[in-house]
């Protein structure tokens, strides 16, 4: 079996993807604070939720990326 090599470059790439998603989740938090007129302290008090949402986003995006990779491989 071919060994799977995880390079530091690929780790960095994944980290940046997650970071972007974390920023998106934070923006969603800002949006909901404005929409529901709740307290700005939720920017940090709801960090746990934001983190969880960013992970959900990352998993969803991950599934999409795997699907795209599979289609590419299949076309080859």
């Amino acid at each position, binding site marked *: 079996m071919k060994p799977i090599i995880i390079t530091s470059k690929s780790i960095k790439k994944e980290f940046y993807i997650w970071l972007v998603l974390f920023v998106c989740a934070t923006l*969603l*938090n800002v*949006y*909901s*604070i*404005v*929409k*529901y007129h*709740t307290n700005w302290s*939720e920017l940090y*008090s*709801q960090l746990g*939720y*934001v983190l969880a*949402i960013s992970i959900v986003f990352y998993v969803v995006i991950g599934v999409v990326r795997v699907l795209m990779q599979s289609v590419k491989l299949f076309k080859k």
Partner: protein
Amino acid sequence: MDKKYQNRRDFIKHLAMTGSAVALAASPWLGAFGSSAQSVRGANDMVRMAIIGTGSRGCELLRHLLTFSVAQNIRIVALCDNYNPHLLDAVKLCKEKELNPQSYADYRVMIEKEQLDAVIIATPLYCHAQITVDCLQTGLHVFCEKSMARTLEQTKWMYDTHIATNKILQIGHQRLFNPVYLEGMQRIHDGKLGTIGQIRAYWHRNNNWRRSLPNNDLSYERQINWRLYKEYSAGLLTELMSHQIQVANWALQKTPVSVMGTGSIRYWNDGREVNDNIALIYSYDDGTQFVYDSMTSNKKYGLEEQILGSTGTIEFEVNKQYLETPAAAPGIQQLINDVEHGIFDKLPIGGASWVPETAVNYKGENIVDSTNYMDTSLQLEAFTQFVRKGSAPEKILKEGYNASIWTMLGEIAIEKGEKLSMPKEFII
């Protein structure tokens, strides 16, 4: 007694730490409870006590006393019961703690012979008055279990004797010393629940209440099962409701103006005389009602006192406060909730013209963090402090007095099928 005991000192420390010291200052009896200043006796002088009536409650009170008697320098000098097996139970409890109090079958002999400061009375209801009056007149301070007395006249007789002798008379309404109630009452009195429209309370059990007789000897029936006979007890009213009408009066800081009620023996048709189900409505001068029911053939709803205000509700027995408009959930959680509803909820074709108004499904907040206090111990500790001081705040006795008077009036209202108010001669 399975809770880790937290005593008066822990309690007062806790009140101070949680900012509830206001509650301490606002409750006259707690203020007195907290300080040992101006004592007639030294703060640590020995208090010599006896227990009259060592049945189930008497032994329970003894167990509580024994948890702090050494620390509080209380000496249990004598025990009295006219039913020997119960007397022996109490003697055994003392022996386990290497104590050796004198035993008596007649309290009159005991109070004459022994050098006592105070007595604790836990006999059946019908003899509370006679024993209390005899003890007060002998110069003893008295802690008497609830309900205060069997009749209106006896209740007043006890109160008048307390006034005449200037000796302490404290009635065993332990909720007066319960931190959940103290904190909750403070909130109610501060207006945090808005206008109280109604207080609902109930106590539901599914048990017989009948105790088995030694060797099935029927000659013991009325002595052991005194609760079931009108000569000795008003049944559910004096045994259970008296606690809850006291809570209602305390919450509203007033006494009712009228009572009406009904009751029957619906299930336990076994020769008992007291009702096994009752329902009463007490009205107050501002229009508030105290709506009460109790039964012994269904226990689903257990017991509760619900204080229903325009901006909130308190349920004391479960240590909960509920706001009418609870604080909104954080924005992000509302957003997720809305998205979920948008995806999963079915869209109605036409708007609902009628929505069932079932109970609000909201868990509420705890009134106090720790419920590790035993109110029965706290009230006995307070009694000891009061004995050292030589006096107790009148408010405590008035709570017991009014609870007893309105419990008795409830019984008469049920029997007569009439709406009753307080006869003038019983107003104190």
